[in-house]
């Protein structure tokens, strides 16, 4: 008779307990995955909206900061032009006023006062007069730009000697009647804006920088990149600004390549006057940190869920299969003839019914067996009687046979004697 294990091997046995546990685990995992996936998706959507809104606010705030740098310079120049009646003072007084302005604002490198015909009235400089380079900027193009008596900001240019970004700002000088009497021109060193931009805090590792309409970098925490005169038009948001016409702030904050070559969520805010934009970038990993934390939490919860599902699966499958295994083991013992095997199944369900049926079957089997044994004993008794009768008859026959055989042998002996006597007589 094959053993239990051999039987299992022979028919490619698969434990019902394991099957049930795995099925429960698989079901739980699928449910958990679906639930976590949906939660993550909606969380991601919400977070993305939050990031877009935050980026817009940060970009606008940074733009206001940079804009205030320029507006402060304009305010100083306008105050100087209006309060000191520069258009009617003598040259020495005008120079003193310009000196005061130069002393107040370190970003002014040179100041020039022009009359209404754009002739130079006074000039002060942080550089030596012989090294003054503003004259080359006071050309007909600039005069054409400032002719209408409005404030003006030039495009950014790089100083040949220091490689620093500079720009020209002008404000009109008017008399009490509002008639244009001249122009106050300032050469502004934009490196003083670098600290301002460098201090703008964008998250932990985010950056802000300023580009002009050509996409040239004019302010960034890493001044070496500004000094190198980098053009950033290859960056998506800078390109968006360069391509756009007005003061549109983008509402999208998709992932793009940042100024430091990493993946960022970027946005920009145009300043308007001057025609620059502040671009703010936040590394993707930082922007989606909350989502990442959510993923980790979901993963941990899912792992915990799976663990619980395994424990529950094992418990439930064992609870289900234990009586079945008990019945199986009992069946095997009964098959081996142990009809007194106890079936310890007390479930009040179908398996319990099965166990009861099994017990009933065992009782019937015992009765049948007892009846069979009784019949067998009766049969053996009859056979013994018949055997004895048969034996007596056989003995009788044997006796008769012995008698018949003796007579026959006597006759053969007599005949043989007769033939001997007859042969002697001849």
């Amino acid at each position, binding site marked *: 008779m094959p053993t239990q294990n051999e039987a299992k091997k022979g028919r490619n046995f698969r434990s019902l307990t394991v099957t049930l546990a795995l099925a429960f685990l698989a079901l739980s995992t699928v449910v958990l995955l679906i639930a976590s996936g949906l939660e993550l998706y909606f969380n991601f959507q919400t977070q993305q909206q939050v990031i877009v809104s935050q980026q817009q606010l940060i970009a606008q705030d940074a733009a206001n900061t940079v804009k205030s740098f320029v507006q402060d310079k304009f305010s100083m120049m306008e105050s100087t032009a209006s309060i000191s009646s520069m258009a009617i003072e003598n040259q020495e007084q005008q*120079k*003193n006023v310009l000196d005061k302005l130069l002393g107040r604002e370190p970003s002014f490198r040179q100041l020039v006062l022009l009359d209404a015909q754009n002739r130079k009235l006074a000039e002060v400089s942080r*550089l030596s007069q012989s090294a003054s380079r503003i004259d080359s900027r006071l050309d007909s193009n600039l005069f054409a730009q400032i002719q209408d008596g409005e404030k003006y900001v030039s495009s950014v240019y790089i100083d040949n000697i*220091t490689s620093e970004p500079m720009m020209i700002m002008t404000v009109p000088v008017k008399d009490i009647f509002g008639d244009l009497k001249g122009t106050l021109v300032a050469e502004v060193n934009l490196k003083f804006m670098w600290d301002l931009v460098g201090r703008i805090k964008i998250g932990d590792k985010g950056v802000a920088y300023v580009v002009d309409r050509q996409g040239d970098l004019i302010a960034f925490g890493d001044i070496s990149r500004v000094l190198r005169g980098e053009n950033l038009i290859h960056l998506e948001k800078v390109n968006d600004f360069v391509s756009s016409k007005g003061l549109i702030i983008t509402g999208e904050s998709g992932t793009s390549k940042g100024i430091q070559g990493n993946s960022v969520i970027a946005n920009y805010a145009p300043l308007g006057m001057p025609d620059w934009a502040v671009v703010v970038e936040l590394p993707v990993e930082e922007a989606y940190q909350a989502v990442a934390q959510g993923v980790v939490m979901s993963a941990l919860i899912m792992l915990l869920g799976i663990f619980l599902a395994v424990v529950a699966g094992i418990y439930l499958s064992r609870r289900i299969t234990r009586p079945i295994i008990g019945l199986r083991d009992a069946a095997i013992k009964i098959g081996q003839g142990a009809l007194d095997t106890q079936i310890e199944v007390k479930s009040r369900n179908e398996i319990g019914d099965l166990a009861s049926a099994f017990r009933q079957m065992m009782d019937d089997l015992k009765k049948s067996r007892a009846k069979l044994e009784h019949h067998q004993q009766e049969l053996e008794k009859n056979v013994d009687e018949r055997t004895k009768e048969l034996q007596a008859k056989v003995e009788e026959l044997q006796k008769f046979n012995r008698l018949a055989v003796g007579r026959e042998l006597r006759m053969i002996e007599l005949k043989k004697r007769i033939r001997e006597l007859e042969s002697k007589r001849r």
Partner: protein
Amino acid sequence: MVRDKRMGFGLQAVLASLLVAVIFLGGCTTTQNEKVYHVGVLSGLSFVADITDGLKAKMTELGYTEGKNIVYDVQETNVDPAAYRQVLNKFVANKVDLILAFPTEVALEAKAATQGIGIPVVFANAVIENTGLVNSVREPGGNITGVRFSTSDLALRRFEILHELAPHAKQMWIPYQRGYPIVASQLGALQPVAASAGVTMIEVPADNATELETNLQTRVKSSDISSDAILCIVEPLMTMPDTLAVLGKFAAEHKLPIGGCPISNNSSGSIFMTAPDNVDVGKLAASIADKILKGTPAGTIPVVTPESRLRINYKVIQELGLNVSEGLLNRADEIIR
């Protein structure tokens, strides 16, 4: 009852795997040893030695803690080329991560000492015009970059201010270290400007305070100096305390205005000084050093130009009976009264 052993092993394996996964996800940590940077600092001139203070202060701001993740080997010399080379050779032998060298001649020595070795050099207060120190401001090239010192413009600016404060001066004495390489270019730049202002420049080269004193006394005996002034250009002789003391004593005796000399100890009696602040220069050098230590090749980092600060010694100006315009006072970063 018969136990299903095969089922038991399968479950144990699943549980063990889960436990490993939980431990892996929950307790996975990495440790990283922080690199300790070794920076060699060579100051070739005592007058600018406080550049090191600016460097250290800014490096601390940038997250470098001395003794923890950065170690400085600060060597101070004073116009001693032999000592420069000795110190630089030591830096090279010690394989420092970066060398900060100042001023110009030290930077040039550092560049030569590290040629082909790969140790990056950051210079400070160094002249880049016609010295071969860098290829250009934007792309210095090689393994060197730093904070420049604009000598010619500074010399011209000092001349203009002195001329504004002492317009009566028709002769300006210019003492300087004999044979110092960056002097000629400054004198060349000053010559036409002085000529157009009607000022004659008188060069007073000397090797030390004694020689300077002798030269000054000789000049007093040979001509009338009542309408003269003394201009300090960018060079090392007029940064030495002993020469400044000689010059200050001489100027006080003859009531001569001195412009452009250091006024930190007030011994020179200089009426103004315009130059970049050494601590600010050190801070700018630190920002560059930080980039280099983080992996940016030195030769690709543009040279930085520091802002000059104007200090006016109003007390001495008044003692000399000179007039100073309100405009100049307004432009001053510091007024000593």
